[in-house]
């Protein structure tokens, strides 16, 4: 990763943390989300990763917020 890549990745990572701090999702969702964003920026993810993230999202029918 070049220094430019790292700068941009850091910028996006900061945005991710800002959003996660505001939304306070589960630890599992937050971890999966961080990982998926890192992989997406490098164009290295599968649809199943997105599906796993969806499944980890708050479930309104379980009373999650």
């Amino acid at each position: 990763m070049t220094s430019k890549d790292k700068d941009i990745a850091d910028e996006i990572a900061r945005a991710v943390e800002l959003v996660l701090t505001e939304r306070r999702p589960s630890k599992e969702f937050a971890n999966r989300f961080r990982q998926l964003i890192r992989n997406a920026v490098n164009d290295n993810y599968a649809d199943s990763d997105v599906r796993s993230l969806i499944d980890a999202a708050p479930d309104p029918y379980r009373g999650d917020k």
Partner: protein
Amino acid sequence: MDLRILGWTYKNIRGMRELEVTLGSPLPRWSLIQMPNGTGKTTTLTLMRMALAEEPPTPEQVRSFRPDETTKGGEFNLRLRVDGENVWLYLKFDYHTGSLSRFTSRTAQGGMEAGLRLKRPLQKMLTPTFTKLFVFDGELAKSIRDISKDEAAKAISTLYRLDSIERLERVAGEILRRDQTANVSTDKGLSNLQGRLRNALDQLETLKSRKKELERQRARLEKEMAALQVRRDERISSSANLKQRLEEVNAKRNDIAKLTFEATEKLAQLGRNPAAVSARLQDRLHDLSSRLQKLKLPRTTSVEFFRELALSAECICGRSIGPHEKETIERRANEFLGEDQVGVINAMKDALRHSEADTSAVRDLVDTLKSQLRARQEVDNEYDLIVMERHEQGDEELDQIQRDLTDRADKLRQAERQLRVLTASAKHEQDALECDEDNNIILCDRHVRERQAALSDATNTMRLQKQTEYVQEVLEQVVRVSSDQLRLRVQRATNEKLKTILPGEQLRVKEIGNSLLLHTDTLTSKESVSEGQSLAVAYAFLASLFEDAPYNLPFVVDSPAVSLDSKVRREVAELIPNLFGQAIFFVISSERDGFAESFYDRPDAKFITVQTDRNGKTTAQEGITAFRSFHSKDDESARVTS
């Protein structure tokens, strides 16, 4: 990712019949291509953009490159280096049909591939709109502040890979759509299913209540009938000659009931052994037993059994087990292994082996029950006869009791029929009684479970939808926040550069929103900004945009300084060289002053002059001498003409 332009070739493109421009090796950082107005600067930039971004041109656009009516086809070839690999992009124009064919050739793969075949992320990024930002048109420079609505934001999104995150939103949407194919996907659909389940549950509750009510009614009727029957017997007994006969009939009834009960109990006992029920059933059980004997033993038990057997000195049949037998037992053990549940199978085998029984006992009991039924019928007839005789003697009270009994019996029959409809569980009985989910508890219960399953499926779909929407919202928010941060970063960098380019003026980018919003202390509105200032803002913005991007792209610009005054030209000329890894400037002779001349002393600059002779032949001449002298000839020509 690193993209560099190595050169390009024209064949039958407007005035250029055959011309190759090579930027050389090592690749110069700055290339100044001097081309007089009208010789193909704009055409070259258009062709470069067309080669890099896959957008089909119209037939009119294709034919606009035609040198004359007799030329059938033309070609433009752009030579690139992408991450160290040489790539050739070919545009082949068919002027007759007005069509364009693209081909790509790469050193790594060799041969020609149809279409534009760049590395995936690069090709995705090179949209026609984005390409305009680094193959930069003079026209765009004039309107850089308005760069077509949301182009600034789009450029930032593309360059800084935010579009990769945006793509995740689309992937999430596609996942949801795939899951929604068979299920409801709306709140309304879910609400409908919830309503249907509620109705089914209500109906089940109603049927269960009805059953209880009928059972109570039946019990009450039976009690009333018993009481009426006692009263009837009392009335009959009031006649002396009938009293004795009645007692005899009742005694017979009790005997029959006792015998029937005993026979039924014995029959139920015998029924536990299916072999005792009938000879046919016994034959079938024996057949099953012989089949089960051939079944393989379950794996786990067999493994233990054979291992233990192999270790023994003697087999269960009494023969001795030597090394050869031991090896054979262990080897063949697996051939006899089956699934688990040895206990069940062995129990079944045992039960079947001992399923021998005498079926005559059942036959005898059935005969006994039949005879008791006949006896009961006869006693009932005798009883009816007694009742009739008493009736003929004339007894109003007995008549009333009899009418009440008939009434209760009718009601009891109705209640029992309704109960059968409510509780019938066998399919043939349900069919005979015309049962459905509205009148039968079993079917209604099944209906409820089906509704619950449908609702569960729908709820899962809705859950997935809500969760997908949540993921999309979070992704969108991340893109928004990242974009804001990156725009601010580009804005700050742009303003830093503007301080250098326009030191005396307080022209700054106030906001990069959908366009560049400028702020100045001395100018009142953006309309007051001169063309030169606009160009300075454009360069500062584009340089800032590209300098931090993970992509190293060349910067190609047409007439970079033509609209700048000489002071700003020098500033721009000082700024631009350091902003891009590769810059290609298409200039006209008048841009030499202030702009081109600032590159003369730079060793990493290359000068090419493209000119057309009196015979219409266009050539490219390398070197600073030709570059500088071309300007002089042009002036002379202008003076002679004037």
